[in-house]
């Protein structure tokens, strides 16, 4: 039971803090989010140069063997800066699949270029009808000679718009919600039969709807065992949940700090509005929500890093906590900023939107609470 960071973890945090301080203020972030691809290629190159894109991978892959704690440290800081670079999609999600399943050949083809920042990638983890059920996959994979033919639609593919690699879970057998029979395929984004409808999301990120029509892939596209992809998908989404929850906690903390500072300077009725008890108690509630969420995040990250018995319950618990507390903190931050809180120019609005998006990602609060009620 030890809450202190290792020297390496502390150094990692320092380097991210420095980057944010020097190169990633809110104005820059807004510029990147509004650009054609939705993030800064230059910033992404820096992520790779500083080794952040290599953190969770093994030494053989040129990585640093990072785990949930390293991801937590990074994502919390990315949250504070509202980073839009696709770390989640490339490194946590696709990286999480490749780290576990890719053959040497697949690693050289896909993982190395992702780590070096040259290849953008996406995990097509959901479909329009699936809601939060990861096993609800209707996209089909039919054997065709040496390879496979994929048919189906993937919804809300984060970073899917211009990804050079799309990992497509497809069903070779079983009913449309069976966990068995799901295979993960690495599909080239520009392959024949892949059509994409890219779009921005409300929180300044990018996603796409992807339709696969008679997409032919070779047997070298299969990641891991045919039909055995669900367990990996679930494990990777669990890591993604921890990652976005850390990001959310970073956002909640900075929203609380900023709200406290704002109410100390905003004068109405001749006094700073921070002097009103009705507002003070609400800010204490925000702080309490932050502290509780951070505590639970520590537990969930540590439990998963240690492979503790309750690691899976911890995933549901932190996503429920962040869903409810994040919504509360976000709404309160907007409310206490008054009308300024609902303007596009103020960062508060964008933090709130990102928290809202995180609340919806990978199962909302109700969905995860329901898993805990079993």
């Amino acid at each position, binding site marked *: *039971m030890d*809450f202190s960071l290792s020297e390496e*973890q502390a150094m990692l945090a320092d380097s991210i803090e420095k980057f944010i301080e020097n190169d990633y203020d809110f104005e820059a972030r807004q510029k990147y989010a509004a650009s054609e691809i939705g993030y800064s290629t230059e910033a992404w190159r820096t992520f790779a140069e500083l080794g952040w894109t290599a953190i969770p991978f093994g030494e053989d892959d040129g990585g640093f063997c990072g785990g949930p704690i390293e991801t937590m440290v990074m994502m919390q800081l990315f949250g504070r800066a509202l980073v839009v670079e696709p770390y989640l999609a490339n490194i946590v999600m696709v990286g999480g699949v490749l780290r576990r399943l890719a053959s040497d050949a697949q690693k050289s083809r896909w993982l190395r270029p992702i780590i070096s920042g040259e290849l953008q990638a996406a995990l097509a983890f959901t479909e329009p009808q699936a809601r939060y059920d990861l096993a609800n996959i209707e996209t089909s994979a039919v054997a065709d000679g040496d390879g496979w033919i994929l048919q189906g639609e993937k919804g809300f593919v984060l970073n899917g718009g211009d990804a050079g690699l799309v990992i497509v879970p497809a069903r070779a057998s079983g009913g449309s919600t069976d966990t068995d029979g799901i295979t993960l395929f690495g599909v080239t984004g520009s392959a024949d039969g892949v059509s994409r409808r890219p779009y921005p999301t409300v929180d300044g990120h990018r996603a796409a709807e992807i339709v696969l029509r008679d997409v032919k892939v070779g047997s070298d596209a299969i990641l891991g065992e045919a039909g055995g992809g669900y367990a990996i998908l679930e494990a990777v989404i669990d890591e993604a949940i921890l990652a976005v929850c850390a990001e959310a906690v970073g956002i909640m903390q900075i929203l609380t700090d900023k709200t406290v500072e704002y109410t100390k300077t905003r004068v109405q009725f001749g006094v700073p509005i921070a002097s009103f008890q009705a507002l*003070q108690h609400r800010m*204490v509630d925000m702080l*309490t929500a932050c502290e509780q969420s*951070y505590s639970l995040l520590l537990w969930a990250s*540590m439990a998963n890093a240690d492979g503790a018995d309750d690691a899976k319950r911890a995933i549901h618990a932190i996503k429920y906590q962040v869903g409810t507390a994040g919504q509360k903190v976000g709404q309160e931050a907007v409310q206490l900023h008054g009308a300024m809180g609902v303007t596009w120019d103020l960062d508060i609005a964008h933090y709130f939107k990102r928290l809202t998006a995180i609340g919806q990602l990978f199962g909302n609060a109700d969905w995860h609470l329901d898993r805990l009620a079993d």
Partner: protein
Amino acid sequence: MVLGRTSRPTGQAMHVTFTAAELEFRDEVRSFLRDNVPEDIRRKQREGVALDRDDYVRFQKLLAGRGWAAVNWPVEYGGTGWNIAQKYIYATEMAEADAPAIVPFGLGMVGPVIYTYGSQAQKQRFLPDILESNVWWCQGYSEPGAGSDLASLKTRADLAGDYYLVNGTKTWTTFGQHADWIFCLVRTTTDVSRRQEGISFLLIDMSSPGVRVQPIITIEGNHEVNEIHFDNVEVPVENLVGEAGKGWTYGKVLLQHERTGTAQVARTNYRLKRLRLHAARSIRGATPLAEDRIFMRKVAAVQVELKALEYTELRTLAAVASGKAPGPESSILKLKGTELQQAVDELYVEAAGYYALPYVPEQYVLDFPEDYRVGEGAETLTSLRYFNYRKASIYGGSNEIQKNIVAKHVLGL
């Protein structure tokens, strides 16, 4: 902002699992409690029978004999010197063993004030008896006219040679009927610019002439708290702790210790675990309550918050272990801890259904005839506990006062 968010200590990487040594410690605590907590006390705890004075004293002496009574005290005064994991394990094992909670007034409250601010003579005179539970202490803070506004207290202690003459009334004094001594905040000077000045921390022998204990019956019908009247009570000056006029500072430190203790996470955890077991049982072949998803979702939601609080408490303990006194952050523990205790109490009432309603406190004695008992187990106690524990968000500084403290001292508002 709070609990090490700005300073980042370096050291080993974070871990949640126990080391082999910690697991060994857990087994040691577990077997000690299993072999030594008297069966009648354990039964009373399980069956909802109130403990009497002697039960508490017997139990605390047992812990003192093992050196485990004063968990948080410095080793030089008889404390354990345990690390955070050990304290966490101990609290969990105590709850799981159906062991009583330690009465906090001596070991948790006045003890730390005496070893922090008391004279050498006071330490020698009072600390051993607190440690051994030879003397029962109670708390004299609130007054009829001084609740949330504690600094408006009016009990006077006027210096008259080598003693103080104490006059006034203290109230909400838990277990005052059992107490040998009371620690009080009293006004030694009225001529002050701030009301927090002129308050002193005084130790008073309850057997002194002029001390009168008047019971207050609380909402569920029990005698737990009292009003204590002081009528020209003579208190020797050597019973003043620290400096005259500094009592407010000492009292605040004590309240921070009190608030850290009121989170009661391990006990609430255990109560929730028992509730789950209770809900999973079929009563006379009926569908168990555990099949009711709405109820179980409420249980799950409380469980999540409680797990978060467990780690908030551990973070606070880690901060204390690194040399910091429990600060205003302890208010968050008090706030959240009492909210969750009350939430669990509500779930128990809900689980009991109709059987939360019979008012039959007399059946909670050992060996009450089973065929005459109303409700399963302690079902009819659930509402009484629920009513009684509305106190939790009021005592130790109401939760609204805690929010004022956090707003002022943590957020700087």
